[in-house]
């Protein structure tokens, strides 16, 4: 780890000032569950670390007059889980429960999770996000890499597990800086980008900018759920994931939003999957068809074709889960145990 200055501002404006000093590369520290490891590996070598956890305005979960819920950047994942204001966002809570590490839940923050750096091993070994313009990934071990959005140089997958769920919920992000009074509110989906050059990040934040809040609009009666294909019960990155939010009237899907995780350099919005659901009842078949539609554009690398199937399964199960159906898989009773819900047949080829 490189020596660094440590700052602990108590207001947003102090934080922005500390992040914008010329010739000082500064990074934001929240929970530190990702940053500290990257600093120890010298992948991040900042001159200054700015801890935002003492800024009061970033520690709250509040509901505004419109019913939107504002979650401060320093709010921990378990605080989000425990807060009544967030009960209307089951998909987000499901994802946090799936992170299944008490340490990550109690120390990691919501914004930190959204901005977690990619898990790509070439990036974490210090080869940069693009790893020799994609060549290292193409010629190397790409079992966990992108199957969508991988036609440029970027092959990593976005690391956030919460982003797909929050995007389907219509979340936005408040960003301040780099100018002292500068403030903007972005759609969460627009926080992310696929870098085309080594100088670009996987998010659009500029030096000196601080993402302060996630804003999730009131969700009404929309149904939502997330499904992650996880190899085990630990906090390891899932192999594929999907989140869905649906407006269902009289059993028919009126509108839907489907976002994939762990399959592309950004959270991957799949309009095809959403369209395939609209006007239909949620059934085994319609859920499976949404899964097929989600991966129409997928292009596997040399070792990750299996992720296309996993993505289909994740979409199908997220849709079924949102509608309150049995998702199948290993969460339910075993084949020779009594079943609480009707059996789910496999539709995956």
């Amino acid at each position: 780890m490189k020596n660094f200055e440590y700052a602990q501002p108590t207001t947003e404006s102090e934080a922005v000032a500390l992040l914008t000093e010329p010739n000082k590369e500064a990074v934001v520290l929240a929970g530190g569950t990702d940053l500290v490891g990257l600093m120890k590996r010298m992948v991040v070598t900042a001159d200054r670390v700015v801890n935002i956890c003492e800024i009061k305005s970033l520690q709250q979960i509040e509901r505004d007059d419109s019913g939107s819920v504002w979650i401060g950047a320093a709010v921990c994942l378990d605080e989000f889980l425990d807060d009544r204001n967030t009960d209307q966002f089951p998909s987000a809570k499901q994802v946090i429960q799936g992170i299944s590490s008490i340490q990550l839940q109690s120390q990691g923050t919501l914004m930190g999770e959204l901005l977690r750096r990619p898990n790509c091993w070439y990036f974490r070994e210090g080869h940069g996000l693009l790893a020799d313009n994609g060549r290292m990934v193409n010629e190397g071990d790409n079992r966990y890499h992108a199957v969508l959005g991988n036609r440029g140089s970027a092959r990593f997958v976005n690391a956030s597990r919460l982003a797909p769920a929050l995007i389907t919920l219509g979340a936005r992000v408040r960003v301040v800086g780099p100018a002292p009074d500068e403030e903007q509110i972005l759609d969460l989906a627009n926080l992310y980008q696929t870098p085309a050059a080594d100088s670009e990040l996987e998010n659009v934040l500029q030096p000196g900018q601080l993402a302060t809040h996630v804003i999730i609009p009131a969700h009404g009666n929309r149904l939502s759920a997330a499904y992650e294909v996880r190899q085990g019960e630990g906090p390891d990155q899932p192999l594929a994931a999907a989140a869905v939010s649906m407006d269902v009237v009289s059993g028919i899907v009126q509108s839907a939003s489907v976002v994939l995780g762990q399959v592309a350099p950004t959270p991957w919005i799949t309009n095809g999957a959403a369209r395939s659901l609209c006007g239909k009842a949620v059934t085994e078949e319609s859920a499976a068809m949404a899964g097929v539609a989600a991966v129409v554009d997928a292009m596997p690398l040399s070792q990750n074709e299996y992720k296309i199937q996993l993505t289909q399964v994740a979409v199908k199960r997220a849709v079924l889960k949102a509608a309150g159906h049995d998702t199948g898989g290993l969460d339910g009773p075993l084949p020779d145990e009594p079943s609480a819900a009707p059996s789910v047949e496999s539709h995956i080829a």
Partner: protein
Amino acid sequence: MAEVTYSWPENHKARLIGKRVSRLDGMEKSTGAAKYTYDVNLPKQLVVRALGCPHAHCRVISVDTSAAERVPGVVLVHLIKAPKPGDDPVEIRADGTLLVAVAGETEAIAAEGVSKLKVKYELLESFVADHDLQAAEAKKRTKKAGGGIELDEALGEPGDDDDEEEWEEQKVQELFAQSKYVVEGNYGIDTITHCCLEPHGSTLHWEGDRLKVNLSTQNVSRTDDGYADALKISADEVDVHCEYIGGGFGSKFKPDYWGIAAAEIAKKAGRPVKFLLTRDQELKIGGNRPSGFIDVKLGADENGVVQVWDSHHWGTSGFNGSTVSVGNFPYVFRPKNWRRRATGIITDNEPSVAWRAPNHPQACAITQTAYDDLAAKMHADSLDIFLRNLENIDSPEKSLVYAEQLRIGADLIDWRKHWHLHGKGKRRGSVVEGLGIGIHKWGGTANSSNCLLKIHPDGGVESYCGTQDLGTGTRTICAMVLAETLGLPIEAVKVNIGSSTYPFSGASGGSTTVGAVSESHRRAAQEVLAQLFELVAKKLEVPADKLEASNGSISAVDYSGKAMSWKQACSLIGIQPLEVTSIYKRGDDSPLSSSNVAGCQMARVAVDTDTGVVKIIKMVAVQDMGLVMNRKTAESQVYGAMIMSIAAALFEQRINDPKTGAFINSELDSYRLPRLGDTGELVVHFHEPESERARGVIGLGEPPAISGGAAIANAVCNATGVRVPTLPLTPKRVLDALRTAKG
């Protein structure tokens, strides 16, 4: 004084032995009060960090240390595996090899110093495709790694004019032609690392010419000679200390080259030094076990008894180019006719070291899968096929033990209820379930061990032994044996272990430690008690052979009222403590310990055929181990071993970049391991009829870590009807195998 006859107390008389005793140091460990090597900090110490080579295969041409030396707080830079100016380049054969160490006032300073090192490399072609025999042959990366053939005497001998190999080949082919069932398969298991939670390393200092080392080691008594050889001093000038160790699994027997570097840096700097590997260095160079991949053909008779085995396996142990030892193929089973051949593959990886039950888990996983495939081919019950093949095993005297253990295991996992033919079980949606078996063996001979036992005139009891507690409860076993023998509560004895200044005790490797310390501590305690009985007998005017020690007193059997407290008895010693040093040498015939165990494990798994995810529902371990000393820690050993088996079967693998050879998942965020939620229900059953108990103590560390992988692999095959050939059985591999089977 009458000669002491060493023995264990009868089962019904034992107060502590065989009972469930909590670790004496459990509270210290769980509260953080226990000081591991990593926790030891010495006044004015320097902290060392080292540069690991970023390339799997290269030459280090030169190193420029000047910028590192200019970092404020860097005290010195030390070349480890790098050329001095003017020297020839140094060839490096493994990612992570330590090249240059930087000693600084803090860890951060040392790390910053490392980041300023400028190294000139000449890159060389690397090769890491240990699974790819053809590619290895094309690259001339193979080495013969042994083999042999044994044919039933009834087949006769080659004639004088016969070419021996041609004759053998003809006989082997005839045997296959005569076989009712022939199975051909290929199986594999990847390299995994030891992944010690406490990385390798030491904190050490010099007192004049004397080196004092706090070392994370499995070998307290005999690491000194490793330092002595390398540093050109004598072993009596080295003291090694290790109170607690955070995992070794066979990888911590030596000072290692970074340990020697630490001593050299401390000497040069004239200050204490702390040098422990970082996490990625621990995974890269701290230890790994060899991979194995095999082509098998076996032939069986109409009963499913294998009559002929023919195999060729390959794999890597790193740049020294060996693989899993061929001597155990097929594992436990030994058909009357076998031919086996092994090829080592030279890869650009750190050489392997002993890993819990060296070679056995891999041999089990890649050969007993073939026996399970025989059951599948015959549409037979795997349990029946394993039972029938017990007529041909390498330790025929164990066949009844295995049979009984398999019967017990089957009951515990409810085999008859859950069994179905391979791939023919019920399905719920995409989920299927299945059962599998593996069986194993191990030696477990007690290691050499000496113990100094002191009884003080005030009744105090203390022992000294240069053994070590790997976390398995050795310290507690020592105390139990002394307390049991002397009739005292366990808190009344003070056990001192973990220092090379104490009497010698062997390294903790090969499941040898509980046997070792049980031998030395029981002997010392029986001998000291015999001396005390002489004094007490004289005082009480009773025969010494009528005395017994229990409940804190010494009393005469059949002599009512003839008794005195332990303290009173000890006051008879005089003014100097009573001291006894017991000596047990490995291999000595002893009524206290023996060797050779059998064991079986069974797994019940569920497989999601849509995702390829495997979930352990239940695992059962049936294990003999002679006399169970501490039932609680023994069970813990087996639980831990089963979890390690689950890890290797489903999660763990070293992943090398195929082009650069880099070990790319060398951090715990990418080196996947199971969590408690992944282990399912674990059931441990000790097979301990009186005949087993009478054998005395036998080591338990390795055996339960062997057959779980085969059991899980076989259960997945039973569930899906498809063999997933290579462990770990990741979702990708399961899905790939299912897709291939579908065609």
